[in-house]
């Protein structure tokens, strides 16, 4: 995180705000609600309170403007710059301005007012932009789930560096952005994707191309806005150029950056899992024999992609056919005739022909740390 240069801050904890005008894009109560929720994001993790006033001059004044609105930072029409805010101080200090040339929404469509307002109020309170891709104070707009705005630990650390901890006896915490070289890194899912590897963790993916020595970390929603966070398993079916993503008893299919229509679908109806199977832990698809393996608890299932049915005789115990990898796995991916199983911070390089583990690795061995 970064605080604004000179460390400007409000000297009081109880702040007021006013909504000077309303966008016609939303009902007034929707604007009120978005702004109230956006302030709550910050009051939940700091000792600050925010009260709306309609008379007198508020500390933070909220307005919607077109183009040049005489503050030396004209708006630029649709897209581009969405909003800006001023650092704490008297007069224009703390004020937040929203570009009326944008279409403001209360859902996943561009641009969600609650999401943008929460970011701008970070500036109103003295925060500058963060370079943490998972932080609310990251400067670019990336948003998919209107009900899932959560401050990252980076945002919480930032606001608490200025105003101190929350008055709540249980200190709030937030998710952290995965770091490729963190030795304690664990993954939710791993898959190949057109010759690259994609590792999934919470809202994020880590992407490793054979042509690039470093991993790219970004939000899953950047590639696939309609996929949920917390993907639990994924595999690529190279024959069809699709990747399937699993969460709970649903799955999505993607081709490149497109989520294919008609998804999510049920794993029970599509693959024939019994209803006792609630989620998939790990999966990979063997491009040579057209078999897809699903790991569920301490068992695994095998699906025939060509016949489109589950092979007979399954499920089987993981420990019988994949000895040495433990009885339960987080993720699996195939590479050069080896399978790589992920379990906690461990990674097992497994040779299917000899049915043995040939190397024990850290999960982040792929990232040249």
């Amino acid at each position: 995180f970064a605080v604004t240069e000179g460390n400007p801050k409000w000297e009081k904890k109880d702040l007021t705000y006013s909504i000077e005008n309303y966008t016609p894009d939303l009902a007034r109560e929707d604007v009120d609600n978005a702004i109230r929720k956006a302030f709550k994001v910050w009051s939940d993790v700091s000792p600050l309170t925010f009260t709306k006033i309609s008379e007198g001059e508020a500390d933070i004044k909220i307005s919607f403007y077109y183009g040049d609105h005489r503050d030396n930072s004209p708006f630029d029409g649709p897209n581009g710059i969405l909003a800006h805010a001023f650092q704490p101080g008297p007069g224009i200090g703390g004020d937040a301005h929203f570009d009326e040339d944008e279409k403001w929404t209360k859902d996943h469509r561009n641009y969600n007012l609650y999401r943008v307002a929460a970011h701008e109020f970070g500036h109103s309170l003295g925060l500058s932009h963060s370079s943490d891709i998972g932080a609310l104070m990251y400067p670019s707009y990336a948003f998919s789930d209107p009900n899932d705005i959560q401050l990252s630990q980076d945002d919480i650390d930032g606001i608490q560096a200025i105003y101190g901890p929350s008055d709540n006896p249980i200190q709030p915490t937030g998710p952290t952005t995965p770091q490729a070289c963190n030795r304690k890194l664990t993954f939710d899912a791993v898959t190949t994707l057109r010759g690259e590897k994609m590792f999934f963790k919470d809202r994020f993916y880590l992407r490793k191309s054979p042509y690039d020595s470093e991993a790219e970390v970004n939000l899953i929603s950047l590639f696939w806005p309609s996929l949920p966070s917390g993907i639990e398993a994924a595999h690529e079916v190279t024959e069809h150029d699709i990747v399937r993503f699993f969460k709970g008893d649903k799955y999505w299919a993607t081709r490149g950056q497109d989520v294919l229509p008609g998804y999510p679908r049920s794993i029970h109806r599509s693959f024939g899992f019994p209803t006792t199977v609630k989620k998939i832990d790990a999966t990979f698809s063997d491009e040579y024999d057209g078999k897809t393996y699903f790991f569920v608890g301490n068992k695994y299932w095998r699906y025939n992609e060509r016949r489109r049915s589950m092979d007979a005789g399954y499920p089987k115990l993981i420990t019988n056919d994949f000895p040495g990898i433990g009885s339960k796995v987080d993720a699996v991916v195939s590479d050069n005739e080896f399978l790589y199983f992920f379990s906690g911070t461990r990674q097992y390089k497994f040779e299917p022909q000899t049915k043995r583990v040939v190397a024990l690795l850290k999960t982040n061995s792929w990232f040249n740390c």
Partner: protein
Amino acid sequence: FPAHLEIKEQDREMVQNYLEKFYDLKTVGVKLTKNKDSSPVVEKLKKMQGFFGLKVTGKPDNETLTMMKQPRCGVPDVSR
């Protein structure tokens, strides 16, 4: 693939504007030019690429241009 990066005039202006707005690039006498590794534009580009976790090349490559075209907050990334 082109051996040398050639960017469109439109992109050139976009890079210039972006760096002026968000990276405090001074407008007087500074223009985006080719083969000037030490120019203020290159330095600001490197700063921007580092901030966003892009490959730091000092050149307006595709990833950099894509990032610059994303909708964003109007507050500069570096202080003024």
